[in-house]
């Protein structure tokens, strides 16, 4: 049995699917976050070097990973949008960008609050931190460009190009701690040779999966709003609005008409 995945590249087909999936991902995020916080605060031991402050890792690392990962997903959608000219790709980029920016800002904030007691400073212009700040500006630039161009097709192409070109920054962030001598410590996870205690690692991975599920849920809800805003003239949205209007009363704006 084969499934026609291209069916869901149509906003009309994806809209109801996103509505059905979002609550599940919110639920998964809540359960994983509860488990991650429980293990992170009540089971994981105090670090022998950093004391309690290391517990910031349980949100700092997941937010930093999500900031990078969401940008890569946006670049993937940008590629699909430019090659296959799918409308949903641009909508998904629009839906993901604010959450990516939020996670990147949170990674910088939590990193600063971890850095002060650990390294003695909130901020230094080292490669890892500077390239992460550039990532935040790339997100801001993406959203500003999207809002600045009125012609939707042109806006979609321009933002897709920005997403693709900006993706060069992701490997720079990731490998910065290897390529340059930075104040920031090396990679938290080294496959096969992780130096973290098992419970610490479990808590961090659970929080990462929670952030992942949260980002998917938020993107699904936001893309539904984006779809309706952009497809207002389409017949299927007209049918949707008939269903939405139902037996309700006109809003204040309509009463004024």
């Amino acid at each position, binding site marked *: 049995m084969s499934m026609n995945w291209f069916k869901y590249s149509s906003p009309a087909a994806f809209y109801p699917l996103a509505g059905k999936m979002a609550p599940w991902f919110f639920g998964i995020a809540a359960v994983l976050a509860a488990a991650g916080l429980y293990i992170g605060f009540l089971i994981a031991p105090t670090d022998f070097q950093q004391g309690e402050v290391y517990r910031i890792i349980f949100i700092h690392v997941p937010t930093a990973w999500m900031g990078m990962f969401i940008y890569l997903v946006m670049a993937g959608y940008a590629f699909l949008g430019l090659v296959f000219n799918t409308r949903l790709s641009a909508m998904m980029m629009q839906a993901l960008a604010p959450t990516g920016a939020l996670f990147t800002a949170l990674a910088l904030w939590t990193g600063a609050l971890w850095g*002060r007691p650990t390294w003695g400073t909130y901020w230094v212009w080292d490669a890892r931190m500077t390239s992460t700040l550039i990532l935040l500006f790339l997100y801001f630039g993406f959203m500003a460009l999207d809002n600045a161009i009125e012609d939707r097709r042109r806006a979609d192409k321009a933002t897709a190009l920005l997403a693709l070109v900006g993706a060069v920054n992701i490997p720079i962030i990731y490998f910065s701690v290897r390529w340059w001598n930075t104040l920031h410590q090396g990679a938290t996870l080294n496959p096969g040779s992780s130096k973290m205690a098992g419970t610490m690692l479990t808590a961090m991975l659970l929080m990462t999966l929670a952030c992942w599920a949260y980002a998917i849920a938020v993107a699904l809800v936001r893309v539904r*709003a984006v779809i309706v805003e952009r497809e207002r003239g389409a017949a299927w949205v007209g049918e949707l*609005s008939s269903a939405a209007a139902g037996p309700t009363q006109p809003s204040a704006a309509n009463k004024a008409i």
Partner: protein
Amino acid sequence: MSDHSLFIWGSYGVFAVALVIELFLLRSRAKRTLQTLKDEQLVRQLDK
């Protein structure tokens, strides 16, 4: 917890508040979109 509690709770607090604000804004946007749909349909009905 420790003398670093301000750094820990400052991180977790801002993290939680940021997500709550995002969810609130998302909910308002979804509601606004739905209301626009309803309004447009009612305007169409009134125009008939």
